[in-house]
C-alpha cells in the first residue's frame, strides 16, 4: 500500500518534471506550457475550495481570494518595489487574514446559505477592485515586472526570470513545484489529526462540540488555509500575465474551482487536481463544436455528476464501494 503510494507519487513527479518538458520540446508546442501552468495554479486554488468542502461548507468564493492575492502581489511589486518571491507568501497571508475576518461571521451559516454568501464575495471583490484607488479601477495594474532573482546569502536559488531564455518553462516549473508543495501540505493536513477533526465537523458539528472540539476556531482555521491557497494561486497568476484587472477572477472562476472539486471527487485529496485538468482541457477540446460548446460541456458535467457522484477518482476505489 505505502510502496504503491510512493510509486504513484514518483511517477507523477517524473511525469510533470521530465516527461512533459521532453514531450513539449519534441512537439514544439510551447504554448502548452502556459496551459499547464494555468492548470497547476487553478488546481492550487481548487485545493483550497476542497478543504472548505472537507469541513462541510460549499465554497463558491475562492475567486475573491485569488483576486485579492493577485492585487496584493501586484501592488507590493509596483508601488513598494518588493520582490515577487516575498509578495507570494504575503499575498497568501493577507488572504488568510482577510478570510478570518470574513469567515468569523459567515462560517456560522451552513449549506446553501454559506454557499450564497461566498458566491457574493467574488462579486464584492471585483467591485472593490473597481472602486478602490489603490487598485487603479478598471484600468487595472499592468506592466508588472517578471519575478526577480531569489538568493539567500549570495546563493542564487531562483534566477531572474527576465534574464531567462525561456520564462515559460521557468513559470511552469515554479507553478508545478508550488502545486506539489500545496498538495503535499493538504495531504498531510487531511491525514493528521487536523484532518480527522475537519471530517468530524463535516459529519456532525454538534457532536464535535460535545467531544470538546472548538468548532468555530477549527472552521475559521480551515477556511483561512483554504484562502491562503487562493491567494498564492492568484499572486502567481499575476506574475505570469504581468497584469491584473478587476475581471481577472470572476464568479465563473469561483464556480469552476468548486466544480473541479466535485468532478475530481470530494473524498480524495488529489481530486481537485484531476478535476482541474479535466475541466480545463475538456472545455478547450470542445472548442471545435463552436456555439454548442457550452451546451455539450454542461450536459457532460451533469451526466458525470449523475453517474459518478463521488467524483472521477471513485472509479479507482479498491473496495468497489458497493452498498
Amino acid at each position, binding site marked *: 500500500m505505502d510502496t504503491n503510494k510512493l510509486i504513484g507519487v514518483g511517477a507523477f513527479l517524473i511525469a510533470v518534471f521530465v516527461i512533459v518538458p521532453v514531450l513539449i520540446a519534441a512537439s514544439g508546442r510551447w504554448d502548452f506550457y502556459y496551459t499547464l501552468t494555468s492548470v497547476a495554479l487553478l488546481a492550487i486554488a481548487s485545493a483550497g475550495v476542497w478543504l472548505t468542502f472537507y469541513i462541510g461548507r460549499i465554497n463558491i468564493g475562492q475567486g475573491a481570494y485569488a483576486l485579492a492575492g493577485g492585487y496584493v502581489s501586484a501592488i507590493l511589486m509596483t508601488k513598494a518595489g518588493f520582490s515577487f518571491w516575498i509578495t507570494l507568501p504575503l499575498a497568501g497571508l493577507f488572504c488568510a487574514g482577510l478570510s478570518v475576518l470574513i469567515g468569523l461571521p459567515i462560517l456560522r451559516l451552513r449549506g446553501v446559505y454559506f454557499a450564497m454568501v461566498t458566491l457574493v464575495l467574488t462579486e464584492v471583490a471585483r467591485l472593490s477592485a473597481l472602486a478602490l484607488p489603490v487598485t487603479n479601477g478598471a484600468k487595472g495594474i499592468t506592466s508588472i515586472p517578471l519575478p526577480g532573482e531569489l538568493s539567500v546569502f549570495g546563493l542564487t536559488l531562483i534566477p531572474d526570470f527576465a534574464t531567462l531564455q525561456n520564462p515559460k518553462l521557468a513559470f511552469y516549473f515554479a507553478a508545478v513545484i508550488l502545486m506539489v508543495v500545496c498538495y503535499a501540505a493538504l495531504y*498531510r*493536513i487531511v491525514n*493528521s*489529526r*487536523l484532518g*480527522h*477533526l475537519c*471530517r*468530524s465537523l463535516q*459529519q*456532525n458539528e*454538534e*457532536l464535535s*462540540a*460535545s*467531544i*470538546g*472540539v*472548538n*468548532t*468555530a476556531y477549527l472552521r475559521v*482555521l480551515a477556511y483561512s488555509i483554504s484562502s491562503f491557497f487562493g491567494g498564492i494561486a492568484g499572486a502567481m497568476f499575476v506574475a505570469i500575465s504581468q497584469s491584473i484587472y478587476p475581471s481577472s477572477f470572476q464568479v465563473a472562476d469561483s464556480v469552476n474551482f468548486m466544480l473541479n472539486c466535485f468532478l475530481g471527487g470530494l473524498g480524495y485529496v488529489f481530486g481537485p487536481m484531476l478535476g482541474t485538468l479535466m475541466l480545463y482541457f475538456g472545455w478547450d477540446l470542445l472548442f471545435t463544436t463552436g456555439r454548442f460548446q457550452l451546451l455539450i460541456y454542461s450536459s457532460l458535467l451533469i451526466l458525470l455528476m449523475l453517474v459518478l457522484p463521488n467524483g472521477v477518482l471513485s472509479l479507482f476505489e479498491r473496495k468497489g464501494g458497493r452498498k
Partner: protein
Amino acid sequence: MTPILQVKGVTKRFGGLTANNDITFDVAEREILSVIGPNGAGKSTLFKLIASFLKTTSGEVLFKGQRISNLAPHKVARMGVVRTFQETTIFRSMTVRENIIVAHHLRSRASLLGFFIGTKQARYDEAEFGSSADEIIEFLGMGAIRSELASNLPQGHLRALGMAIGLATNPTVLLLDEPFAGMNHDETMRMVSLVRRLRDERGVTVLLVEHDMPAVMKISDRIVVINFGEKIAEGTPAEIQANEKVIEAYLGSEDAAIGM
C-alpha cells in the same frame, strides 16, 4: 459530601413558552441520577442547558462549584461534563474505531501544528488514542465491529458507539440522553449493566434522561421527576414509585378521577 453538579433555579423560556421553570437539584459524585417525566416535560431541554448547548434564561449550573451554564459547549466538555445525544448522533462515514479515536480530542497534548509536523508528542498522543480506543472497544464489547463503517451499524450498536464516543473524552459527568430508547428487553438489560460498570469501574457520574420506567427504577440511585417544565419530585426509586404527584403526572388526574 459536596455535590459534583448543582442545578440551581434553572429556567428556560422560548418566547412565551416556559420549557424549564426554576429547576433545582444536586448530583453527588459517582451517582446515577435519572431525570424522568412525560413527553414534552422539558427533560431534553434541561439536558441541553446542563451541557450548555442552550443558554439559560435565568439560574445557573455549577460543576465542582464553577459555573458552566452559558459557556461554549466545547469548554464545558473540556471541563469534564460530556453529553451523548438522543438521536443516534455519530460520525457516520467513519469506522467505529475512527469515531472513538477522533473523540479523544480532549486528551491531546500536542497542538494541531504539532500533529501536522508529526512531533514526538503528537506521535505519542496518536499511539495513546489508539490503545485507549481499543480499550474502550473492549470495555463495550464492540470488538467484532471495530472496522465497520458507523453508517452500517444497527440501532443497538449505534447507541453503544455514542457512549463510546462519550467515554473517549474521559468525562467526570456523562449525560446520557435516552440510552435505552428503541431497545428490546435484553438490549436494555445489557445497557443497564454497562452504565453501572461505567460508574463502578471508571468512576463516572451518570445523569440520564429516560422513558423506560423499569430500566430507570433498576439503574438509578435517585430520580428527579419533572412535569410541564417543573420539578415535581425527587428521591430514591422506591420513594418516586410511591409519590402521589408522580402517579398523577403519569396517569393524568382526569383519568384518575374517572377511575382509570
